[in-house]
C-alpha cells in the first residue's frame, strides 16, 4: 500500500507542477481559422494604404449572413461600417482608404477594423465556427517602398477547444508581454513600434459582449519597458502609454536606444505588469496575474527607401518574462507558469 501511495503521490506531483491555470491565454495562431470576429489593424494616413484580405474556406457569407466591417480610428472611436459579401472558397480584398473616403480628413486615419456578421447593421454578431474565415492585412507605402504583412487578432480560434472547451483560445495574440530585438536607432536605421491595445470602447461599440462573444481580456494602457544591450546588460526601464493603436520610434522612447555602442543590437521586453517575486498563482483567482491586461504589436526596422523588415512581436506572459529568471537569485526554483495570458 505504501508503495502504491508513493507512486500516486509522485504521479500527482509530476502532473501538478505548473498546472491548474486557465488555458485560454491568447496563444492561438492568428493565421488559423477565425470564428466570432477578427480585429485587423490598418494604416491609411498620407501615403499609407492597407488592403485587408478575407477568405472564406468553409461557408458563404452572403445576404443576411454577410460579413460586416466596423472601422475605428487610432483612438478606438467608431467611424463607419460596411457590409462585405464572400462566397465559400472565395477571396475578397477591401481597402479602408476607399471605405472611409467619404469621411474626408476624418477618414484619413490609422485604426482597427472589426470584422464579424451583423443582425442589425450596427453591432456585430458572431461568425459561426463552421463559417470561420482567414484574415490578413497588407500595409503599402509607395514612397517608402514597402509592403508589410499584418497578422490579425483572432477573437475565437475556431479549431481550438473543440474536444475540450477549456482549451479554447480567444483574442490571440493579445498577451501581457512582448519582446523584440532591434538595431540601435541611429542613422541609417529607424525602428518603429506599432502597439495595438484594443480598449473597452472598441469592445462595446462593436458589440463584442459575452455570452455571444468570448470575454475580452483587460485592456492594456500603461506598459512597462525593460531595455537590455546585446550583452544582456540591463540598461533602462520606462513606461509607455498605449492607446488603441499607438506608434513609437525607439529613439523617441529614450535616446539610449541610439547610444549603446559597442552594442549593435538592443533587446526589449514590454509587459503590462511586473509580478517579480510572486509565487506561482493557481488560477482563476483574484490574483491580478491570472487576468492581466493584454496587447500585441508589430516592429518595423527600416533603412528608409532601401529595406524594410516588419513582423509581429514575439509574445509571452509577463509573469514568465519577468519572474522566471530575472529574480532567479531571490526565488528558487525560478517560476514559470503555463496558461497565463
Amino acid at each position: 500500500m505504501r508503495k502504491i501511495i508513493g507512486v500516486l503521490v509522485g504521479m500527482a506531483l509530476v502532473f501538478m507542477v505548473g498546472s491548474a491555470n486557465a488555458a485560454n491565454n491568447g496563444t492561438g495562431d492568428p493565421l488559423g481559422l477565425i470564428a466570432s470576429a477578427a480585429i485587423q489593424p490598418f494604416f491609411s494616413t498620407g501615403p499609407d494604404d492597407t488592403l485587408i484580405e478575407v477568405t472564406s474556406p468553409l461557408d458563404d457569407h452572403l445576404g443576411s449572413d454577410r460579413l460586416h466591417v466596423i472601422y475605428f480610428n487610432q483612438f478606438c472611436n467608431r467611424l463607419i461600417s460596411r457590409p462585405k459579401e464572400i462566397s465559400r472558397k472565395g477571396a475578397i480584398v477591401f481597402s479602408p482608404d476607399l471605405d472611409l473616403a467619404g469621411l474626408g480628413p476624418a477618414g484619413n486615419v490609422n485604426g482597427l477594423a472589426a470584422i464579424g456578421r451583423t443582425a442589425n447593421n450596427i453591432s456585430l454578431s458572431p461568425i459561426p465556427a463552421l463559417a470561420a474565415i482567414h484574415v490578413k492585412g497588407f500595409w503599402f507605402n509607395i514612397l517608402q517602398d514597402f509592403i508589410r504583412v499584418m497578422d490579425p487578432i483572432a477573437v475565437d480560434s475556431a479549431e481550438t477547444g473543440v474536444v475540450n472547451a477549456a482549451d479554447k483560445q480567444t483574442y490571440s495574440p493579445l498577451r501581457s508581454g512582448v519582446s523584440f530585438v532591434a538595431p540601435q536607432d541611429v542613422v541609417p536605421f529607424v525602428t518603429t513600434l506599432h502597439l495595438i491595445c484594443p480598449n473597452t470602447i472598441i469592445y462595446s461599440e462593436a458589440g463584442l459582449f459575452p455570452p455571444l462573444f468570448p470575454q475580452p481580456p483587460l485592456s492594456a494602457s500603461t506598459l512597462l519597458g525593460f531595455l537590455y544591450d546585446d550583452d544582456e546588460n540591463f540598461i533602462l526601464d520606462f513606461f509607455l502609454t498605449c492607446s488603441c493603436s499607438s506608434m513609437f520610434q525607439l529613439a523617441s522612447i529614450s535616446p539610449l536606444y541610439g547610444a549603446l555602442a559597442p552594442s549593435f543590437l538592443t533587446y526589449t521586453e514590454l509587459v503590462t505588469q511586473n509580478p517579480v517575486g510572486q509565487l506561482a498563482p493557481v488560477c482563476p483567482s483574484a490574483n491580478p496575474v491570472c487576468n492581466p491586461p493584454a496587447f500585441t504589436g508589430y516592429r518595423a526596422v527600416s533603412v528608409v527607401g532601401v529595406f524594410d523588415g516588419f513582423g509581429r512581436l514575439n509574445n509571452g506572459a509577463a509573469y514568465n518574462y519577468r519572474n522566471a529568471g530575472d529574480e532567479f537569485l531571490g526565488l528558487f526554483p525560478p517560476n514559470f507558469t503555463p496558461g497565463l495570458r
Partner: protein
Amino acid sequence: MRRFAAGLTILVFMTLAGEVAAQNNGTADPLGLISSAVIQPYWSAGADFTLIELSSPVFFNNDSGTLHAIFFNAACARLVSRAVPLTINHIALLDSDILGVPAGNGLVAIARTTDGVNLVPLPQAPFAPPNFDFAGPLHSRGHWVSFANDHINVVDPIAVSSPETLITAPPLNQQTYSPLRSAATYTNPQNTATVATTIFLICPGPVVAFLPASAGFPAPPPLTNTIRVVIYNNEELQLDTQINCACLTAVPLATTAAFAGTYLQLPDPQDFSLVRLWYTELFSFPFGSSFTGYRGETGSFFFSRLFNASGLALSDPPVLGNR
C-alpha cells in the same frame, strides 16, 4: 490511509483524463515561447542570406547542455552544427554564411546538446522535471535578406513545443509542432512578367528524425511529401492536381508544370472585387499528415506564412479540431 489513497487515485485519473481529452493540433502561435526545439527555415543561396534571431527571455541557455543549431540543406541532409550559448535576456543573430554553412537554402534545428552532436530538448521551464535542466524556452524568427530582389522577409519558425499552451497536465497536454497542419490556403494575383508568386513548402520529415521521442522530444505528427493542390477562381473549382514537397521546396506558380499555366490567366473578369485573386487550398497526402509554408511575391516583394487549417475543416461539411 485508504481514503488518502483513493483521493490520490482520483486526482491522478482526473489529471490523466484531462490529458486524454487534450487537443494537440498544431494551432499555437509560433511567435510565442518555444521549448523542446525550434525548426527555422533559412535561405542563403547566391546573394541571399538569412539572419536567425534568437532570444532567451526566460532563463539561461549557456550551461554545459548549451544551445546547439544543426543546419540541414534543402533536401534535409545534415550539414554542420554550431553552439549558440545564450544567457538570460540575451540575443543572437545567426548567419549561416558567417558560420561556415555551405551556401544554399534549408532548415535549422535548434535545441540543446550534451555531446555536441545530438540534440536534447529545451525544457518546458527552468528546472522542469524530469531532468531539472538549467535552461528555458526561447523565441526565434528568421530574416531572409535578398539584395537582388530588394526584400527582407520575416520568417516564422516551427515551434516543436509551446510551453505556455498546456492546461492541466504538463508537459503532455500542450500544442506541439505548430504550425504544421494538414491544410493551408493562399491567394495570389495573376502571375505576369513583373508579378511572380512562389510558394515555399516546408515538409521537415528528415529533420524531425533528429528530434526523437527517445531523447524526450514530443512525438511528431505524421509528415507528408505530397501535396494536393485545389485552385479556385471566383469560388469555382479550376484545377485539382498534386505536387511534391521534399523538405524545403520552392514552387513557382507561373512555371510549375502541374499547374498547367493556370495562374498565368487573369482571374474571372466577372469578379469585380478590388483585386482579382486566385484562391488555392493545399492538402497533405496522405490525408491527415502535416506541413507548413510561406508565400512570396517577387514582383512586389511581400512574404508571409500561409493560412492554415485542418484538411477536414476545409471539407464539406467542415469538421473542426483536427491537425
